[in-house]
């Protein structure tokens, strides 16, 4: 798919819908993490409407691309994106975080079609993404695995264990995205527990790092 004016316009429209739904979901639930969800909307929009191969009619297709939302508290963004994509009914969004809803506070792969990994306890998603990428290599499949980390989340030591493994096992079918919104619950990440310089750290662990600054 070529990136042109009309595609960008279409993607922007989807991103606006997703943002609107996030605000509505968190408002209805009177609970949730709107900030960390809103900061990943553009990235999710690109992934689900441009980059990733996923099939609505076959959500468990073994050749599909996978996405792991390691920063699971940003679930409203994932749910709103999956709803925009058609995996979740839009009415369900209003039940976010309420009893007997599919939409748990943090993503549950057993409840929601289109969710590839259960997450919520920070620091664990990259290891799971590595496992998916390793399985792809073993089975000689061409799917790719995308993993979204929070910039506060990478304070967890397991992330760096996993970064080491990804490099050691040469997982070139893996794409890791760090959402560098510079905030965590107790304040700015640079003040709470600075993980900077994030790019140099991942480079040192063997990653090819592309920087995309907010303009």
């Amino acid at each position, binding site marked *: 798919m070529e990136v042109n004016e009309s595609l960008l316009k279409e993607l922007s429209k989807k991103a606006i819908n997703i943002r609107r739904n996030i605000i509505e979901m968190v408002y209805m639930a009177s609970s949730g993490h709107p900030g960390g969800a809103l900061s990943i909307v553009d990235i999710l929009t690109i992934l689900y409407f441009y980059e990733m191969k996923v099939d609505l009619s076959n959500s468990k297709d073994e050749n599909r691309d996978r996405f792991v939302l390691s920063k699971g508290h940003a679930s409203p963004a994932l749910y709103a994106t999956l709803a925009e994509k058609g995996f979740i009914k839009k009415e369900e969004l209003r039940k976010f975080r309420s009893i007997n809803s599919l939409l748990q506070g943090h993503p549950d792969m057993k409840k929601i079609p289109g969710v590839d990994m259960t997450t919520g306890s920070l620091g*664990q998603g990259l290891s799971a993404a590595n496992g998916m990428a390793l399985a792809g290599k073993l089975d000689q499949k061409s799917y790719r695995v995308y993993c979204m980390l929070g910039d506060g989340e990478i304070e967890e030591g397991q992330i760096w264990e996993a970064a080491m*493994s990804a490099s050691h*096992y040469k997982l070139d079918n893996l794409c890791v995205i760090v959402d560098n919104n510079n905030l965590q619950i107790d304040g700015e990440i640079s003040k709470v527990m600075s993980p900077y310089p994030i790019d140099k750290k991942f480079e040192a662990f063997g990653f090819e790092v592309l920087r995309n600054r907010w303009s």
Partner: protein
Amino acid sequence: MKPEIKIATRQSFGEALKKLGDENENIVVLDADLSSATKTEIFAKAYPERFFDMGIAEQDMIGTAAGLATCGKIPFASSFAAFATGRVYDQIRASICYPNLNVKICGTHAGITVGEDGATHQMLEDISLMRGLPNMTVLCPSDDISTKWAVEEASKINGPVYIRLARAATPVIYEENKIFTFGKAVQFGDGTDATVFATGVEVAEALKAQEILKGYNIDIRVVDMLSIKPIDKDIIERCAMGTDRLISIEDHSIIGGLGSAIAEVLTERYPAKLKRMGMQDTFGQSGKAVDLMNFYKLNAEAIVKELKN
């Protein structure tokens, strides 16, 4: 019982894994730099492309196993019990048990029978941690034959399983052709003076005690509780009804382990007194396994002493 042959259950585990690998190409094995001790090296040598050494990084090992399972693999992740359970409790809870993923966790070197390495390596709380997790099955085989069965059985269960294994060589108890039933314990003898519920390395000790006690005209039955979860409630109730005294013995803390699990069943089904032998809310220490079992009253002699009183 054939006390002349002694095999460590970790060795049986390594051999069983390789056999599983022969039969099913979805079996993959992960280890955290201990493959020569956990015996996953046997599989690694046969199937290097399906073996992943994750280095000294157990949290990542557990998470990677979870990811592999989401793609249809059947991962066996192995380390010493202390690092395969306690170190990674939240990874097991959030990334494996909650999504009910098909990962088998194999903790070798459980209990004080680890010996010389001392308290940091003597895992005494793993049964407690693992059986408290929803979706988790907990198996604690007692010898070579039951371990091979447990490994194969674990591969047939579509969900998380914890297999508790020992470092020390222990007697082979069962015949080669023994048929086990999932969730069922195995009873030795039908004495009515007492029941000794034992698990893991303690089963051989209980059987030794059974022989010695015959000399004192005390006829006991021994029950091998090789499945901790699900637990065989019927046999517990039956033994409580049919014997005068009840003892549980485990190379594990008496808090949360086999003794606690049996007490829970007794409370609900047939209230009776239970003497819980095991580690009495304490850490272990360095020493030879045999000396530690004697010091902490985890051997046949301790059972005999208890039942002679």
